[in-house]
């Protein structure tokens, strides 16, 4: 795990805190900032550090465990699993791709509404592609 690996939540965001934790942790897992066999803080530790209810963190960890990213065991904490990328069939893949496009368009529209120019959005997407390739 890189030393800089952190979770950042904002209580004023519309998105629920457990969703924010899931999204950020998944991003760190995909990008390799948190690697297989790394140990994450316990539910209690992360909840105290963030100042949110234990159940909020437990929900987030459970969601990621269901996705196959984490292994939660009582007494031994939370460990990152070596996750095999799923191999969806053609129909599931089409659905996932459609969902991805829809969310990407919604996000781009939201960012444009907040004042980001198309050029900036394109630049950010290009840099994201570089990260994913690496």
């Amino acid at each position, binding site marked *: 795990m890189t030393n800089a690996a952190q979770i950042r*939540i904002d209580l004023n965001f519309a998105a629920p805190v457990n969703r924010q934790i899931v999204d950020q942790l998944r991003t760190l897992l995909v990008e390799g900032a948190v690697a297989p066999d790394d140990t994450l803080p316990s539910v209690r530790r992360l909840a105290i*550090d*963030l*100042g949110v209810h234990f159940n909020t963190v437990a929900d987030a960890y459970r969601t990621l465990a269901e996705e196959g990213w984490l292994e939660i065991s009582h007494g031994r904490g939370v460990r990152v699993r070596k996750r095999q990328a799923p191999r969806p069939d053609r129909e599931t893949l089409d659905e996932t791709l459609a969902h991805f496009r829809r969310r990407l368009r919604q996000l781009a529209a939201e960012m444009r509404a907040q004042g980001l120019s198309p050029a900036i959005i394109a630049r950010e997407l290009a840099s994201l592609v570089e990260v994913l390739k690496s």
Partner: protein
Amino acid sequence: MTADSLMLCVLLLLIALLLNWLPLWRRSSLWFGVTVAPDFRNTPDARRVLRQYRIEIWVVSLIAWLLLWAGIRWEAAWMFAAGPILQALGAAVAFARGRNRTQPHAQHPAGARTATLAAASEHLPGGPVAIVVPYVMLAAVAIFLRANWERLPRRFPVHWGIDGTADRWAERTWSSVDGPLLAGLLVVALLHVLGALIVTASPRARMAETAEWTARFRRANLRMIVALGWTLAALFGVLALNPYLSRGDALVVPIWLVLAVVLAVTAGFIWPIIRISQESGSGSDGTPDECWKFGQIYYNPNDPALMVEKRFGIGYTINFGNRASWLLIGLLVLIALVPLLL
């Protein structure tokens, strides 16, 4: 004037001096328990709040001294006791008034919070050895006293005045001989419980930019707890050995030396905490202002932390909104009652 009353007068003066400086020993974005801009402390408004607080502190301390003097002069016990109580209450009111004056300059913090994903690896400084040593000291004294039971006087002093004159005696029983060791054991255990709670039940840092500062602040507090554990175990051990070492009613170690050692160790370990507290860039503590009652009592049922940094004073305080806090308070009351039960 007796030595006791002289000691109390000096104590009131020391507390007044401490209260005079206490509001300055806090994070850079806190002023009288209110979250403000980091450079607010250098503004005329901030200086005015501090000046008014200090005037109130010294006025109330002067009244406390007068009450003390009157209590001595007319031998009125209630006046004697009222002085320190008035000073403590006056300080709380002065701080709360300072907080109210600072409120118009409050900067409502954003809801952003951060947490490191590094698994918890913090321990009390010195590791298990540093924790065990005070218990070993106390146990060694207990074994030594048991081995030399017959050499202990059948009656010996167990309490002394400030001037070192014995004023209470006890027969040689297990509770009178081992009493100081049991008291030492409870005090050391309480310190270690508090240290463990700081490690496990207080936030490491809720603002990414203050993580390094917070880690050093925590470390300095934990070092003080470990050092006090050693010091108090040694003092209670020496006190328990007094009937064996002393000839007559005198204390082997003079009371002034005991106080001086405790004060020196405390001051030596508090000084780094004060220096860290005065550094710029320490930001805020990530707790909501509205959950600080009178700026001093933290009550936040939505915060799972049991311990949080104090906003007025040095060290950590309890989150009274956490149910476990009442267990901790119960434990403190129990420890305070043990000497009465023995």
